[in-house]
């Protein structure tokens, strides 16, 4: 369709180059130079000293992604089997907490999980605890799961609405039990949703610094915390921070190429 003028997009091109492309090159430039602007690989090699933090980030984000998938799969299926007008209401109930600022929601978990907070009080009634839940890696995973599980539900729901109920019934008629129907019919047919959901949960989870700082205390640093400290924190060093960001970007790219290798229909269910 050539009815408009190409020139209409030129302001955006300038914008895109200035504020999307150039900043990324600056990150690469800073990562490869020292404070005086001389070429060096020291920033990148110095990251190996933070190997445990990177490993922890990857591990916690991975655990959170798996838990999100396990929680979200039945919810997505349930939503997709409802009548259409009910689907809208239920979907809105899933989305509603996301409309609240995530800092506020995470802050509420700080209160809930504290040593003399409501969760421990409840456990106390049945003779358990009190447990130290706040400032543990478990709390960080919980925060990730809580904040990002809707990102898993939405794409799963979108791809599951396309599964015809008669396919499920046919599988059952032909003698498949629940497990078999799940493994042979439902899971294969929701692969596009699963792979989109994994990216949409894993990417923010691996790069967060707010959740780890609020729920993990000082002892559960993640990549995000490291980067934040290099840019705005105590260990101000833009070059090392850029190198870390570069590594994080590579991790995210690897993750996305991994999940998109499962389906060509990427970015489904976004927005």
């Amino acid at each position, binding site marked *: 369709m050539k009815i408009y003028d190409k020139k209409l997009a030129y302001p955006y091109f300038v914008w895109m180059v200035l504020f999307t492309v150039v900043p990324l090159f600056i990150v690469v430039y800073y990562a490869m130079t020292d404070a005086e602007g001389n070429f060096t690989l020291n920033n990148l090699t110095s990251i190996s000293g933070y190997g445990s933090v990177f490993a922890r980030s990857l591990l916690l984000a991975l655990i959170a992604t798996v838990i999100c998938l396990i929680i979200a799969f039945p919810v997505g299926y349930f939503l997709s089997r409802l009548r259409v007008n009910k689907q809208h209401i239920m979907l809105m109930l899933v989305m509603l*907490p996301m409309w609240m600022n995530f800092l506020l929601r995470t802050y509420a978990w700080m209160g809930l999980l504290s040593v*003399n907070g409501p969760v421990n009080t409840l456990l106390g009634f049945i003779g358990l605890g009190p447990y130290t839940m706040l400032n543990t890696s478990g709390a960080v995973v919980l925060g990730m799961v809580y904040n990002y599980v809707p990102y898993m539900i939405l794409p799963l729901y979108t791809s599951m609405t396309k599964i015809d109920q008669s396919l499920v019934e046919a599988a059952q008629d032909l003698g498949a039990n629940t497990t078999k129907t799940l493994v042979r019919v439902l899971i294969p047919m929701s692969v596009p949703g699963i792979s989109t959901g994994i990216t949409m949960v894993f990417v923010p989870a691996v790069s967060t610094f707010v959740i780890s700082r609020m729920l993990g205390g000082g002892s559960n640093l993640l990549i995000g915390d490291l980067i934040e400290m290099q840019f705005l924190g105590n260990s101000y060093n833009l070059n090392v921070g850029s190198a870390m960001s570069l590594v994080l970007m590579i991790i995210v790219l690897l993750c996305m190429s991994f999940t998109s290798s499962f389906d060509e229909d990427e970015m489904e269910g976004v927005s």
Partner: protein
Amino acid sequence: MKTKHLRLMQRVYIILFFCFMYLPIAYMIVFSFNQSKGYSLFTGFTFKWYRSLFTNASILHALWVSVEVAVLSAIIATVLGTAASLGIASMSRKSRLLVTNITYIPVVNPEIITGISLMLLFVAYQRFAAQSAWLPDNIMGLPTLLIAHIAFNVPYVIFNVSPKLKQLDIKLYEAALDLGCDPRQAFFKVILPEISPAILSAFLICLTYSIDDFMISYFNCGTVETLPIAIYSMTRKKVSPEIYALSTIMFVVILSVILVSNAMESRSYRKDQKTLREEGA
């Protein structure tokens, strides 16, 4: 018998799931009315946190900054993005693919990367500007905040408006030209009304993203505080029920907006159904 069992389990599971999702919100609402600052015991009902919230000058100012940045950035992003979509639609397939892929970068990149990469750009600019006499060298604050918000909003406008342009029937535009419109008139009378719902929804998406954004603002705000940043600095101190009061107000506002818009939607839906039935009869 077995399906009944399964259905019950499904119900229980969904209820448990929603309990999990709404537990923090319920907790905040209850404890925003609590007398004492503790987090486990409810010691009495009070409105004092709401009162102190509304006299908290830094929160009110931050709210104002948030609204200002959101409205301005949403307007600019919508105009820029809509013009870009129109231009992109008339490009060759190859260059369209390239532009679309670059536009995806801010959407798929972790927010922290978008945030720090823009911050580095502004830092580099400030170093450069400090040497020249006429460039303003202290831009960290509202200008950078605005640029950052536009930068992460424009892609959403493009990805909202472009599909709508693709669906557009070119024949309508040609018919308008045949009937004597010049291209400008044809655009404003035929194309713009067709894509305006997409433009409006893009604008609303920009508003909500901008009001809600913390990560990208955090690195590019200088000393200016938006509401999420004010909330963040409040959470760094010890527990204050004022935050709970703020959350409660936000929740009530959001809930009522959603309920009203849903009621309007279902009313127009029913109206449509009714006219359909009447036409059929």
